[in-house]
């Protein structure tokens, strides 16, 4: 059994204009110690996915279909009491902006001790010791003094380290990191990602990395899911996706990355913008921006087609595969 299994998850937001489906048909599994990346542009539903895993979607959103199975229990159906014993304890979450995630009026020690004492019955002194130990794990110098400091006394990178330490506090099974490095500059970003990679490997923690940065994903994760307009459109081993993207959207994303050594050219960009979730077109949501769109794209939502180690939701890829198959068969037939 996988550690976390998301089956056919659908998340709706009940707005005045009607229901908006922020996530549809999300399926994935994550094993213990595995690191996956979820990429996509703004508004693709990445963060909603992160929050819906621990059932913390803010009003008026709700899980309308599907299940989130964590060790055989459905998180989408749990009551508050049960959820609280999972959140922070077994599954923890790291947010984008470390300036905002730490409470400005409480010392770092207070915030850490509080979390520990909520989930375990230990004395304050023991809790402090664990906190010091975790701060050491994220390489914060002189952790004892840091405990009594307020968040504004630390730099951005330090703060994100503290946030990660808080995430690790209860030795969780899964960490959901929602764009953990977006607010940091590039050098700190690399440090933090290295740190997260090291910690996940050492403690055998599963990582769900939500980001729009393919560079970060390629550095850290083993498998990647590409999201577009609330659906997963391509999934597979990170290496294959980066090196040999099949879906036109993923290709577009990768082409849009600035390349070192290529001078003086305009960056590629995907024309158009993502459709509003209130009016996702029939068929493939990417159709209108896609250079390879075929007739079928405007009628049916594409299913996943296996291509190499990846699964791609694209009619064009499916068509190509079919042709390939036919050619192969012909060759075989011809040989006979």
């Amino acid at each position, binding site marked *: 059994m996988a550690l976390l299994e998301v089956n056919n998850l659908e998340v709706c937001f009940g707005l005045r204009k009607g229901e908006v489906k922020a996530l549809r048909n999300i399926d994935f599994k994550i094993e213990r110690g595995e690191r996956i990346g979820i990429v996509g542009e703004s508004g693709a539903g990445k963060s909603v996915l992160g929050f819906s895993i*621990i059932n*913390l979607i803010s*009003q008026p959103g709700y899980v309308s279909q599907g299940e989130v199975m964590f060790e055989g229990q459905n998180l989408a159906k749990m009551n508050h009491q049960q*959820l*609280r*014993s*999972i*959140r*922070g*304890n077994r599954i*923890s*979450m790291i*947010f*984008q*902006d470390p300036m*905002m*995630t*730490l*409470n*400005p*009026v*409480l010392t770092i020690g207070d915030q850490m001790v*509080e*979390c520990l004492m*909520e*989930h375990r019955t230990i004395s304050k002194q023991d809790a402090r010791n664990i906190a010091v130990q975790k701060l050491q794990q994220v390489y914060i110098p002189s952790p004892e003094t840091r405990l009594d400091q307020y968040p504004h006394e630390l730099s951005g990178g330090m703060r994100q380290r503290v*946030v990660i330490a*808080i995430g690790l506090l209860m030795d969780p099974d899964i960490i959901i990191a929602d764009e953990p490095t977006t607010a940091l500059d590039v050098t700190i970003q690399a440090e933090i990602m290295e740190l997260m990679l090291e910690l996940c490997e050492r403690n055998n923690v599963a990582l769900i990395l939500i980001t729009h940065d393919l560079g970060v994903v390629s550095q850290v994760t083993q498998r990647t899911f590409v999201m577009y307009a609330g659906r997963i459109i391509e999934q597979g081993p990170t290496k294959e996706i980066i090196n040999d993207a099949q879906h036109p959207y993923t290709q577009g994303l990768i082409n849009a990355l600035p390349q070192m050594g290529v001078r003086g050219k305009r960056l590629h960009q995907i024309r158009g913008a993502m459709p509003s979730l209130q009016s996702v077109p029939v068929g493939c949501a990417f159709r209108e921006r896609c250079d390879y769109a075929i007739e079928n794209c405007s009628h049916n939502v594409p299913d996943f087609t296996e291509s190499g180690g990846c699964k791609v939701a694209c009619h064009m890829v499916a068509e190509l595969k079919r042709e390939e198959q036919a050619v192969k068969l012909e060759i075989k037939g011809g040989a006979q």
Partner: protein
Amino acid sequence: MNMTAIVEEQTVSNWQRFRQSHFWHSFCIDKVAQISFLVFVAYVIAALLAPLMAPFDPYDPGSIDIMNSELPPSWQEEGDATFWLGTDAQGRDLWSTILYGTRVSLMIGICAVMLQAFLGICIGLVAGYVGGKVDSLLMRLADVQLSFSTMMVAIIVLAVFQATFGTQLYQELAMVMLILVIGIAEWPQYARTVRASVLAEKEKEYVDAARVMGLRAPRIMFRHILPNTLSPILVISTVQVANAIISEAALSFLGLGMPVSQPSLGSLISSGFEYIFSGSWWITVIPGLVLIVLVLVMNLLGDWLRDVLNPKLYKG
């Protein structure tokens, strides 16, 4: 007053931190704030030490001589050196009575505001954090409460109480009743302020982070959100204490406040009012001045605090 108390309890490093803060700095450069604070502290000390400072005990009928009634302050021609500020119509020393009256007024003001703050903060936090129907219900309740003026509620409640239970019991419970009435009548001020801040704070990521940690809702509300809404609470508290003191004085003036045997500043003013045309101006004017200065000083402190705690006005 609050800040110094907190700082004294904590370690030296916190004291140093306080000395370097923007708060302390702006206090040091603001003459008005310094004077207001000094005067306020003087009031508090006078109120606390009233039994030691007062030459007479105005609550003890044995020490009062009716022959001494309506003596003018000692610097006037007919004044008596034993009664610095003169005496009132019953022959009580006005200085002692004002000291005790300040004590009563401050006590009522602060206790009533504590009650208001307690009710208002709890209700505001719940309304802001839970939202939805609970929010609407609580805030409509606040609107209803606000649509009755404090005075009207107080007059009705106190008059009914006096009529039902008799003056004897009323006189014994006057202070408690005033605190309750003023406290309950004004909670919506706090509830609205707190709710507004909570709505803003609730959207911040640290609240999400606390929820992700698996903390309970009351814990998030009181330990994480409440401390972040403290500055507006502090500011309205100073103004509300001043308001509560005025309300109490007004009620006492109308004869629904503190009884004449345990006068507050308001009932002193009221008791002297009958004699003002017979020339005994001091019975009304002196407690009146004391009251005005007290309220003024608190409002000035509140203004200063609002400016200091408002990040938009921060001048660095």
